[in-house]
């Protein structure tokens, strides 16, 4: 190879290396940007999901609390309670336990209340038994005192046996 060819090859090589030097920064920026995006997106989505899950779940909790507090001030019978339940949760109904003189309302498996009544009334025409004389409402589940029940999704339209 003569000196002419060598110098041409070296010039081409020089241009190539100069291009590499110029592109070098761009490569690092791309890599760093990709890593940053991946990490922060995961953090963003994870954080949003937590906020959303808690917000949605506590929305139900809030309704059960509000219903319980209103019930304590206005409800006298299990029929009154049923009406109040329908106002707060149109698709979910509670169920009476005549034997225990209680009515249980379960908005979700985590959030439920048990209303305690004083006596059982019986309609002699149709033998329908109802409860009257609301004494107290057990809000243990709202206070976190029930065994923990984990909700994957908020069940809707969940209906229980109704006796009014």
């Amino acid at each position: 190879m003569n000196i002419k060819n060598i110098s041409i090859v070296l010039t081409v090589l020089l241009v190539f290396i100069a291009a590499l030097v110029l592109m070098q920064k761009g490569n690092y920026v791309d890599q760093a940007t990709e890593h940053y995006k991946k990490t922060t997106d995961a953090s963003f989505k994870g954080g949003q999901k937590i906020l959303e899950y808690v917000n949605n779940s506590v929305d139900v909790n809030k309704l059960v609390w509000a219903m319980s507090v209103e019930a304590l001030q206005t409800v006298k019978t299990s029929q009154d309670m049923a009406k109040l339940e329908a106002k707060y949760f149109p698709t979910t109904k509670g169920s009476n336990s005549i034997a225990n003189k209680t009515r249980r309302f379960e908005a979700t498996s985590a959030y439920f209340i048990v209303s305690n009544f004083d006596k059982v009334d019986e309609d002699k025409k149709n033998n329908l038994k109802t409860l009257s004389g609301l004494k107290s409402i057990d809000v243990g589940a709202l206070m976190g005192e029930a065994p923990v029940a984990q909700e994957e999704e908020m069940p809707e339209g969940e209906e229980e046996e109704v006796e009014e």
Partner: protein
Amino acid sequence: MDKKKFKILAIVDGVLIVALVVFMFALKGKYNDQAQASVKEQVGAYKATVNTALQDQWKSMDQYGMAWKLVYATVTGAKTEAAFNANVQKIFEDKDARFKQLSYMYTAASIPAQVQNDIAAVGLAEQFLLKDEGGVKEIACGKNCVAKFTFVKGKLKESDYKALVEYKFAENFSIGAPAEFKFE
């Protein structure tokens, strides 16, 4: 061009190539360090923002839970200022009960225990009773949520916890999307 000029060109090319290679390796180390530091700093700042939002929600939920317990106690118990004060103190100071209630709420929302523990590291809400002046008591019931109880001559005159009943969680807790990466 004659042979001599090609010889000079070849020498100059050789020198420049060596210089550029040295320069390239020097820059490589510099860019690598810069990129790593930059990513670490910006990712750290964003994660801190996310954590702050989650901890904010945690503390607010604590206030929210305490507020409902207080409303419940006020509705079911004696309607006196003394009873109210005792309830506020009892609810606020019972940290085990507060944590239990919060943990129950987060578990019900399908938040894994490990994630709860990370968020809970911030501790519980520092404030509950916000104002206590002339029989008017304001209670924190979450971020941007205040419930008001008014007492006249030691007797409960008015309970205003409308803010608690109408509390819009989704409007109060959110996280902004990460900003674009900046590399100086």
